[in-house]
């Protein structure tokens, strides 16, 4: 069944690419596809097969039913002088078309059940990773297995100029992040999903994985990729303004490469910020701008103006300008504002990152307060 489906898809593909050329698009139809991605996991391949089978069954039923209808539409026309028959019930046939579909459904239900049971078996993972949805980025914590203790945020890295059509779009437009999730090939990876603010969903089509990330709860899913490569997905539950801009990028690498990567990450973590360091204004501004652009700019905007009516401005705002509001400013970044989109960044960012971003906010644009917040100030406010 798989083969015939593919043949059908490629035939239809040729036809459709002919139509496509009419639109004079600059993009080639190279990425063009009519069916699902062929998954790289066992569970995915089973679901893919199931989809092909059910689609073909539907096609067969469609051809039979609408073939009969087409015959009737052609032969039983008034314009051809066909006189209407007078029958309007037949117990036998009515029982038949209730029972036969029921049998077909049972036959479909058997493989569907087996596939689902396989899909939901998250037991005995080699590696367990927690994926936390934030508005609008993903956070990954390697909880168990090789790489335990690694944690980082994964933010979309597609340049704003490409999104706003001021620059040509790269071939992987939308599907780039600063820190992709890295996992070894042929290892069972269990993903725990949760969220910090609203419901998100962690999804990678090539793994046949999609799991809602619900704030306050832990859900789980798993995959065991058997092919190295880079696989993309996107947040799959509407989570606000930048829902479309929180991609998921997973790099599946060999076991040796994975060990290397783990080593590098550990080194990086060890060489992290010294929390006792005293920052100068210029240093803090440079670091803070990076933190701001990754975490704050999607709502408060790069120019600090916010979006009127939805997200408040920081430029000229009392909280970011008045000396008396400094404590309030630190508290708001640490703990968020319940009932609004302002998240609590205390758990996501380090003292250094929070200190520098607040310094940035209190000195950028027209907020020239000259104040420098030190990591120690943030630690004290936690």
């Amino acid at each position: 069944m798989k083969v015939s489906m593919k043949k059908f898809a490629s035939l239809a593909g040729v036809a459709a690419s002919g139509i496509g050329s009419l639109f004079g698009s600059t993009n080639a139809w190279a990425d063009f596809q009519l069916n699902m991605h062929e998954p790289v996991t066992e569970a995915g391949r089973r679901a893919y097969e199931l989809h092909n089978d059910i689609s073909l069954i539907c096609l067969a039923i469609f051809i039979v039913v609408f073939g009969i209808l087409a015959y009737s539409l052609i032969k039983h026309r008034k314009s051809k002088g066909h006189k209407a028959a007078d029958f309007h019930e037949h117990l036998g046939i009515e029982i038949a078309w209730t029972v036969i579909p029921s049998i077909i459904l049972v036959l479909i239900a058997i493989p569907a059940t087996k596939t689902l049971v396989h899909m939901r078996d998250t037991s005995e993972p080699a590696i367990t990773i927690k994926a936390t949805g934030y508005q609008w980025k993903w956070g990954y914590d390697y909880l168990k297995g090789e790489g335990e203790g690694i944690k980082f945020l994964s933010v979309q890295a597609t340049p704003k100029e490409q999104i706003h059509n001021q620059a040509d779009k790269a071939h992987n437009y939308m599907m780039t992040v600063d820190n992709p999730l890295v996992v070894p090939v042929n290892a069972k990876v269990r993903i725990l999903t949760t969220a910090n603010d609203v419901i998100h969903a962690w999804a990678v089509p090539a793994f046949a994985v999609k799991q809602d990330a619900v704030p306050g709860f832990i859900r789980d899913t798993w995959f065991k990729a058997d092919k190295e490569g880079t696989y993309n997905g996107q947040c799959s539950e509407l989570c606000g303004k930048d829902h479309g801009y929180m991609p998921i990028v997973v790099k599946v690498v060999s076991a040796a490469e994975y060990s290397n990567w783990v080593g590098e990450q550990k080194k990086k973590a060890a060489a992290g910020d010294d929390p006792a360091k005293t920052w100068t204004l210029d240093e803090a501004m440079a670091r803070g701008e990076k933190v701001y652009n990754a975490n704050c700019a999607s709502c408060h905007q790069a120019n600090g103006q916010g979006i009127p009516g939805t997200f408040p401005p920081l430029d000229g705002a009392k909280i970011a300008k008045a000396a008396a509001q400094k404590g309030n400013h630190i508290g708001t970044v640490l703990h968020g504002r319940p009932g609004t989109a302002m998240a609590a960044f205390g758990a996501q960012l380090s003292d250094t990152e929070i200190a520098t971003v607040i310094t940035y906010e209190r000195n950028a644009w027209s907020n020239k307060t000259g104040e420098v917040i030190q990591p120690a100030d943030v630690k004290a406010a936690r």
Partner: protein
Amino acid sequence: MAHEHALGGHEGQVGHDAHEHHGPPSGIMRWITTTNHKDIGSMYLWFSFIMFLVGGAMAMVIRAELFQPGLQIVSPEFFNQMITLHALIMVFGAIMPAFVGFSNWMIPLMIGASDMAFARMNNWSFWILPVASFLLILSMFVPGGAAGTGWTMYPPLSIQMGMGMDLAIFGIHLLGMSSIMGGINIITTILNMRAPGMTLMKMPMFCWTWLITAFLLIASMPVLAGAVTMLLTDRHFGTSFFNAAGGGDPVLFQHIFWFFGHPEVYIIALPAFGVISQVIPTFSRKPIFGYASMVYAIAAIAIISFFVWAHHMYVTGIPLTGQLYFMYATMIIAVPTGVKVFNWVATMWKGSLSFETPMLFALGFLFMFTLGGFSGLVLSLTAVDVMLQETYYVIAHFHYVMVAGALFSAYAGAYYWLPKWTGYMYDETLGKIHFWLSLIFFNMTFFVQHFLGLAGMPRRVPDYALQFTEFNQISTIGAFGLGISQLLFLYIVLKARKGGKKATAEVWDGAQGLEWTVPSPAPYHTFETPPVFEGHGKH
């Protein structure tokens, strides 16, 4: 006795007979104070068409933004507001009122009643609607704009929203009140006011579908009202129904919402089935096949619709046993739905078929609703749904059910009964052009979205990866074609109100039923003394 075009126009030559039945007052007060089922039916239909154009304009904004990758026309937050309002306005403002309009106009005529049972409540059910829609549209202009949550309004996202969310909540409360009152009215009318001789099992199928739909409305609307009220108190009064930090659960909202939401699908689909079950026998010149099994199938669909809600929630983390149960229950719906399709095909089999516009729309309905049913069967399989949930495949699926299903059925009904309402035949050539344009552009818009979904394009995004560009362009061009084609319908209706070929009482040579025994246009008051129903066809 005043003979009046209840669809508007021709101000009445008010009757001077000594009866207590007067014609309608003239001017705007006629429409504000009317208790006449035909006037109210017409208002429902006009209102739903206006809302259809408003919701359609929003769809054009969505498709225009999606014509190319990148952000061109609107901001992401406005895009989210558009998808929310498009859905709410189309579901509650366009489709549901359209079928309530048909029920108001046709149920009394079909069962030989003089009017609806609660005529003043009928007026009130209608006039709540414009107010509710005004609240929804107003929400676009308050600080923060309309709710950007999608029509499903999932918390905690809906807790974050501004005042627009509150306006939507109150709008939904009003819409729900209107629907419940309408439902009570329809049930009471059908159960109590049928002409002598018309037993339940002799009723036209349209009345059966509405009788069952009305029960669905009464059962499910209060559930939605409860859900949005809990949302309101979570937002403003410190409750934590949907907040895990306060002991609640965000997923609880989804359970409540879809307990309403799935029956809602059939609230829309069943009256559409009813219209099709009137149109197909007429143009086949043959009674409907398997009347009794059709009734049982409708009842079965309605009952099962309350037990399948979590198939909208396969990836929320419900347990494996839950997934299995909801998968099996959902698959079962295919059986009664299949029975209906087979019955319609058997009705046409060996008939004497002709293809006037209503029949074309009914065939379009049959063809595409079946496709929507098939994609529904695909989505019912949990393992497959995990790959397709929240993708464009789902968008394609429910537009096949909602647009090709409900909208095409509504057009079938509108063309079918238009001569009875206006007294004139519509322009058949233009009607056929309207059908073919709608059919072609509809498929151009939505068929390609199956491929987008299979390739993994998520729904509710204003921007997408380059691989999705071509299909989105095809879809957008189709959408604008589909949108513009609908203006043709407006022209056809306006033209048919002005004049044309006079319609006979029977209108269609194969038409059966009491509604075809009254003159065209239907007089302002009909069946003041109940007719005696002797049955038609060979029931």
